[in-house]
């Protein structure tokens, strides 16, 4: 039987003996380990006091980067947010601002 190296431990030093046959992954959602936040040139900001938690911004996010907990949206998941601005555009309450990312 093959040994399985979890995605979190896979790196470019892995040998053929430890890599999963066929490139299978026996876990869900391992892409969460990947930082796509560094793709951003623009960045949204969450102005919590303006937010009415209407939730319209949540489903339009291509990167599943607006977490929701107990019926409230939380601050952005900046590890994955790519800074597209779709959420900013749909917000009717000025709870999201959008500007150049300071690097």
């Amino acid at each position: 039987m093959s040994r399985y190296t979890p995605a979190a431990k896979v790196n470019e030093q892995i040998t053929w003996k430890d890599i999963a046959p066929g490139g299978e992954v026996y876990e869900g959602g391992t892409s969460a380990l990947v930082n796509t936040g560094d793709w951003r040139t623009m960045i949204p900001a969450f102005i919590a006091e303006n937010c009415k938690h209407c939730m319209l911004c949540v489903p339009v996010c291509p990167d599943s980067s607006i977490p929701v907990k107990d019926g409230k949206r939380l601050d952005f998941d900046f590890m994955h947010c790519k800074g597209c601005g779709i959420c900013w555009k749909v917000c009717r309450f000025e709870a999201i601002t959008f500007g150049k990312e300071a690097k």
Partner: protein
Amino acid sequence: MAYNLKEELAKPERLSGGHRMCAGCGAPVAVRGVLRALEPEDKAVIGSATGCLEVSTFLYPYTAWQDSFIHTAFENAGATISGVEACYKVLKKKGKIDDTYKFIAFGGDGGTYDIGFQSLSGAMERGHDMVYVCYDNEAYMNTGIQRSSSTPKFADATTSPAGSVVPGKPQNKKNLTEVIAAHNIPYVAQTTFISSMKDLHEKAHKALYTPGAAFLNVLAPCPRGWRYSPEELMEICKLAVETCVWPLYEVIEGKWVLTYQPKNKLPVEDYLKKQGRFSHLFRKGNEWMIADIQKSVDQKWEALRTRCQG
């Protein structure tokens, strides 16, 4: 049960961040919308045709999918999921599985309208209990914006460029939703992203929970290929619907139903002018092209309305 966005968002997210789709891409928005229609207790096996979505969401060892996922090739998402579904039926019959699974295949317009059309048609005709979802971005975006049979007339694509003699793609867009409806399957629908995603959600839920084969055609704009600013996603979708370029409707057991009727049908220019792929239409002397598109949209909209009234 009435649609309540807040309740829907309380469900666990089934598509993780960290995938490699472009910033502002419509495809993952479509995927999230469809997966949210799954009941949380149900499991799913999801297939995808080769394309942007597939190469970006499952790059070894990183899968964005919380559910089981299979990719095999470009032209066979329908057949691949057929096989998974057939196996499920047997294993369930033999008592080897007790969970309830749903089967979803995703494909772009390349993998759906064109190279995967045969496999899709076969899967639909055979009536597997599955949903095929096309995220239609109207060109082969994965290989660099080449025209597809879904690319609208006159659009500029890299294999149908607007030149001094040929003004973009010469042919009409294929009406795949109607073609699949002609397969006489239990459920077919056309949708896109509108405000709270109610239309997409309700159609996805029907598609998933109607026994047998179902097809969803989701207009999923591509900021790179359509040449608009990424933040405009929802505005572009809204204009597609309000101009009747992309009408929202469903076909339930052969019954055609309009699910949205614009109060004030907007001229197609409003939709076209937002997108760089149509910029040549607005050059002096090309007014006829816009008129041509308007005429075609009007005719199709009227035909659809008649069909939905009948």
